[in-house]
């Protein structure tokens, strides 16, 4: 069975070094290319010279506004996907960003796993080869039909289990925290931190369904921190 691994080339435009490094480290590996820019000028230089699958764009930058970079991208008809990452959760910024043609908007602080999932979703949407399937060993996810199959045998998953599997797939080989999973599935307003057992039972169900259909067990627990989807 062929392993389809999406490799991405991204540019992180972010002035906060700590965050920049973390993102770069998280995206690195698996053939991904991650470049960074820390201010407006260097970011503008990079987007005029190279093309990226996705640009992670902070709005507040030293000596410039991230939205201007977005405008420059659109003015030149560059096809790069854009994910705005901003500390401002103001509706104006979000609407303005999306109006200008950003693909998505993520408010700081975010989970790196959430960021990666969003980036992968953008890249997949943007990919021209019409590949609407994610294949991982014997697992196949049809993104259009929202169906999962193991060796062509369909697995019946609930909406949440499907979202969970997709989330794991986007963060292959990474430990995903329980908080990130809870927030991804139910949003961040809901306090279910006292309900982490619930995530456990949820993941147990997903695991059981996959294994019962003939998949290997890819989901590992990581010392109470979270879970990891990996093939080794």
């Amino acid at each position: 069975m062929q392993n389809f691994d999406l490799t991405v080339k991204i540019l992180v435009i972010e002035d906060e070094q700590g965050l920049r490094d973390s993102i770069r480290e998280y995206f690195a590996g698996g053939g991904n290319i991650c470049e960074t820019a820390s201010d407006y000028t260097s970011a503008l230089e990079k987007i005029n010279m190279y093309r990226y699958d996705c640009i992670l764009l902070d709005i507040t930058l030293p000596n410039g506004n991230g939205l201007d970079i977005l405008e420059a991208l659109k003015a030149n008809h560059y096809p790069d996907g854009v994910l705005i990452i901003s500390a401002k959760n103001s509706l104006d910024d979000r609407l303005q960003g999306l109006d200008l043609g950003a693909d998505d908007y993520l408010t700081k602080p975010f989970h790196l796993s959430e960021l990666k999932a969003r980036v992968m979703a953008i890249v997949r949407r943007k990919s021209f080869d019409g590949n609407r399937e994610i294949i991982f060993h014997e697992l196949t996810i049809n993104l259009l039909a929202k169906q999962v199959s193991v060796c062509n045998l369909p697995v019946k998953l609930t909406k949440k289990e499907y979202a969970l599997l997709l989330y794991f797939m986007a963060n292959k080989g990474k430990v995903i925290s329980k908080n990130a999973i809870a927030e991804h599935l139910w949003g961040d307003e809901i306090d279910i931190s006292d309900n982490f057992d619930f995530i456990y039972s949820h993941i147990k169900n997903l695991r059981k369904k996959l294994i019962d259909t003939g998949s290997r067990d890819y989901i590992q627990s990581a010392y109470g921190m979270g879970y990891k989807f990996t093939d080794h």
Partner: protein
Amino acid sequence: MKLLDRYNRFSLLTTILVIVVTGFVYYFTISYILTGQVDKDLLVEEHEIFDYVKLNNRLPQVFKSEDLTIRFEPIKRDTVIRQFAQTRFYDEKEHDQESGRTLFSSVKVGPQLYRIQITESTVETEDLIRVIFIITLSIIFVLLIILLLINRVLMRKLWEPFYLTLKQIKLFNLADRNGICPVDTHIDEFYDLNQEVTAMSQRVLQDYQSLKSFTENASHELMTPLAVIISKLETLMQDVDITERQGVLISEAYTTVDRLKKLNRSMLLLARIENKLMPDQDDIDLSLFVENKMLEFQELLADKGIIVIQDLRYRQLRINRDLLNILFNNLLGNAISHNRAGGQLIIHLNELSLSFCNTGTAVALNEQTIFQRFYKSPESEGTGLGLTLVKQICDNYGFILSYTFEDKLHCFKVRFST
């Protein structure tokens, strides 16, 4: 009591008192003057009698006039004290007892001493006094009533700028951002008052705004360091050689930072709702919205074995979708996480209200404190801002949020504005 009423009451009492006193003084002065006039007439008459006796050495002929009667009476000794007195006499013409003024005196004709009694009717004088008195009183009362009416109308008109200012102060609300407008008036006191209040409202609004933006900025500034901490912890999690102990520690730190993040977001959101920065609204079919929410939460509900009872009628609501989401997530989240295993969740929706009732602790919550900021039950892991947010959203749209505890059910009810 209104100032006007108080003033009127005081001025009315004073005026009446002064009028009564003046009336008495007036009455007595006039009657004193008029009596003096009568007395003078009587004296003239007496003098004439004396002159006549001196000249003719006999008593004059007693004649009767309209209002003057003279009587002589022989007396033995000189006992008559010459004096004036109020008397009553019989008016033969009118066949009536009338009041009069009498001068008692005496005269000696030869050896015989006579008592003289000269009486003049004072009916006309009294009538005159009465008429003058009544006319004066009427004028004063008419004047008083007119003054009172003028006071009422004039005062109302004069105080109008004051009431305008007062009304604005009453309606003044920090979150509205509507200051107090200047009122057009030529009365110095009210003008000053209005100027000061207007200036004060501007100052207060400014201070409030700067405080608000400080809170908002502070929260924003906290977001980036929080993002760094979270991302570093996530990076640390990826390390392959983490021991179980380290894993637990990282997990605890991570969960705590996550809570800090939620707290910060809630605070920002509160500030934004208060500042009415969430203006766009949609028409949302609430019953459909509730059904979708229940689907979203079905796993959570099933996991706790909570039985859901729904009674949903069609209700459309114009509201910001994000805020509605927050409202539902908080109310539903509470109803689930504070529920007992195998408990109940009853949702009612109709034209007037939406309510969530759930089983849980057997003790009622304190309605006074649960909507306060940072209040939370000891066992809660939340931020303590959830219900505050719900309340703020309800306030924002003029909905009324209430809590009741009946039949062992904790009920949160949102009554829509009509």
